[in-house]
């Protein structure tokens, strides 16, 4: 604890606020703010997973929303069939099955699309990941069984041992703990030998290859890990909103996720959470004042880019860090 940096303290403080405030809101009759916090925390997990790629791997994925969608449909589709019949193989309310599906399908999707995408770099990588995201989007739009782009209402949430997802408090608790675990996981990975290779390749790929690292596979591994985490966030989001639609996978959503990470400050532990918090809260607060809230919001983004380099975390950082 002695060695805690200023950002470390802020991270701790932020996480503490997230632990205390939302339940307080709920108990005082402001269920909506609990909802807001749940959304924020779940998207925070997605942003943290993206940060592993974008911040530490230098891989700007512009199709990450696809994983959220896949994770959410991994809840929606089995639950739909359990209610309305058909597709006996997966028709079930069993949360563990949903979880395995969400993470498994995400991993598979990441493996296939990553293997192709990682042949490119820079903006080309950004665009090819976007293309795969859009393919997922249009695929689910075409699936008439699940109402295409009208979306699917989840009537029964995943049934998990120990946790009842119908209870907003327990759902939030699970999401919060998941976020903490996700942050720790990313931090651990980043500091590990694997993380060193990933960050080295971000900075100077040629050097890393010359040293004997097959950076392609290291990056692919990171891409799969990130995809799985994001798929898990989708699993939570599906259970939270109980309404899922292909729209969750649209490139604009991937863009929002990306903006959250950059806004908060990529390659910092708290940056993604800070970004998603500011993004969601600003949206909420500004839009309650005017329907033209995009105007001040846009101006803020421009101001941030022009005058604060490296995202909001930079505002908190001491000079020496």
């Amino acid at each position, binding site marked *: 604890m002695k060695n805690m940096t200023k950002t470390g303290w802020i991270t701790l403080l932020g996480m503490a*606020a997230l632990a205390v405030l939302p339940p307080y809101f709920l108990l005082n009759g402001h269920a909506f*703010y609990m*909802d807001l916090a749940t959304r924020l925390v779940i998207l925070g997990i997605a942003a943290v997973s993206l940060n592993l790629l974008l911040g530490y791997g230098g891989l700007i994925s512009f199709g990450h929303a696809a994983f959220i969608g896949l994770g959410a449909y991994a809840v929606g589709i089995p639950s739909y069939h359990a209610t309305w019949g058909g597709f006996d193989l997966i028709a079930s309310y069993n949360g563990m099955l949903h979880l395995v599906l969400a993470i498994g399908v995400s991993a598979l999707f990441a493996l296939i699309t990553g293997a192709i995408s990682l042949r490119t770099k820079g903006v080309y990588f950004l665009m090819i990941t976007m293309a795969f995201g859009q393919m997922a989007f249009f695929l689910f739009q075409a699936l008439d069984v699940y*109402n295409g782009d*009208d*979306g699917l*209402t989840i009537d029964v949430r995943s049934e998990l041992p120990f946790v009842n997802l119908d209870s907003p408090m327990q759902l939030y608790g699970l999401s919060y703990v998941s976020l903490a675990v996700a942050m720790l996981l990313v931090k651990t990975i980043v500091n590990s030998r694997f993380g060193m290779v990933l960050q080295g390749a971000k900075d100077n790929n040629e050097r890393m290859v010359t040293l004997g690292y097959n950076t392609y596979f290291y990056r692919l591994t990171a891409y799969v890990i990130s995809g799985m985490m994001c798929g898990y966030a989708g699993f939570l989001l599906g259970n939270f*909103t109980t*309404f899922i639609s292909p729209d969750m996978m649209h490139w604009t959503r991937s863009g929002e996720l990306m903006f959250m990470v950059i806004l908060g400050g990529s390659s910092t532990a708290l940056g993604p959470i800070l970004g998603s918090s500011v993004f969601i809260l600003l949206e909420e*607060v500004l839009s309650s004042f005017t329907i033209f809230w995009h105007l001040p919001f846009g101006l803020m983004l421009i101001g941030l880019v022009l005058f604060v380099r490296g995202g909001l975390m930079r505002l908190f950082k001491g000079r020496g860090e």
Partner: protein
Amino acid sequence: MKKLLSAALAATMLTSFVQAAEVKIGFVTTLTTGGAVIGKDQEKAVNLAIEHMGGKMGDLDVNLIFADDGFKPETGKQVTDKLVKQDNVDIVAGYIWSNVLLASRKSVLDAGKFLITTNAGPGPVAGKLCHENFFSASWQNDETPMAMGEVLNQKGVKSIYIIAPNYAAGKGMVAGVKRTFKGAILGTDMTTWPTQLDFSAELAKAKASGAEGLFIFYPGKAGGAFMKQYQQAGLKDSLPLYTTFTVDALSLPKFQAAEFTDVLGSQFTQQWDPTIDNEQNKRFVADFRAKHGSYPSFYAAQAYDSMFLIKSAVEAVGGDLTDMDSMRAAMESASYPSVRGEYTYGNNHMPIQAYYLREVVKDDDGNWTTKIVQTVYEAHQDIYAKDCPLK
């Protein structure tokens, strides 16, 4: 972040601790994006309705909260959640888009509140997903195109080509016209919604199909784009156009400004028209025009009706909003003065009402508007009612 939270907290306190004798109505519509044309028209109509009521329903003050669905189901659900959980409204009304309604309905109904749609009417909410607290102030999606199918039969059209957007309502419209139209359907194109605005490929296909008529459904700005391209393609004589929800009071002034005369004389079906002869409608149309300088659209008419439907329920229970059973019974009787004239409710709380054939004409001042040419159905009930378990 803490500052923001406390600001949010303060805002909450302000709104939720002021509880007077009032009826709180949340109205979900589209106020941003291109869809806002419709939302704005509904907003105007709702405000006019409240003005006509003197700001009161019975003894209760009316507290209206408008929410923007941003033209997206997910956003629609989020703002609905907020209305229900945070603003704690008594009744949620609104919903232009079927997919937004489908996404949001559960949030309202699970909270035990009334939900009144002022436009969207997808099949499921009339059928297997019907609910005792759900009412429609509009129609079921399939009905208007079914009326158009009848019109096509009467006109002796042998074959048609269909172009419609690929979303809930679009599919409903296609299903509707296919149900009643007895001729051949030579092709159906479902286009990407709401992004696709260039229909050159579809129009070329429709023309090549050799159909006798073209049936389309394009609400909002896509309708304007479609009509324009239809005109540019010069298909008026070879491939007459039959529309539903495409030409309306919102697009007509734009067409008139652009001197798009092909629209004059075009026909479409609807449950309402500004010329319907009753006191309520006359007052609504006249005051709306006086205030906003344009004819109200059918979206506006439905939104206007929804407020009077709610008013009838509030008055029936003398302001005791906890007596939901009596409120429900009052609404089921549809005894309020509707701008469309009298109608009744089916078991699924969908209107059983008349459908008319409207035609675009010039009014006395030279403004483009519509008039009724014929009555297609006297009292039509949607086909999903039988799937609804409600009695």
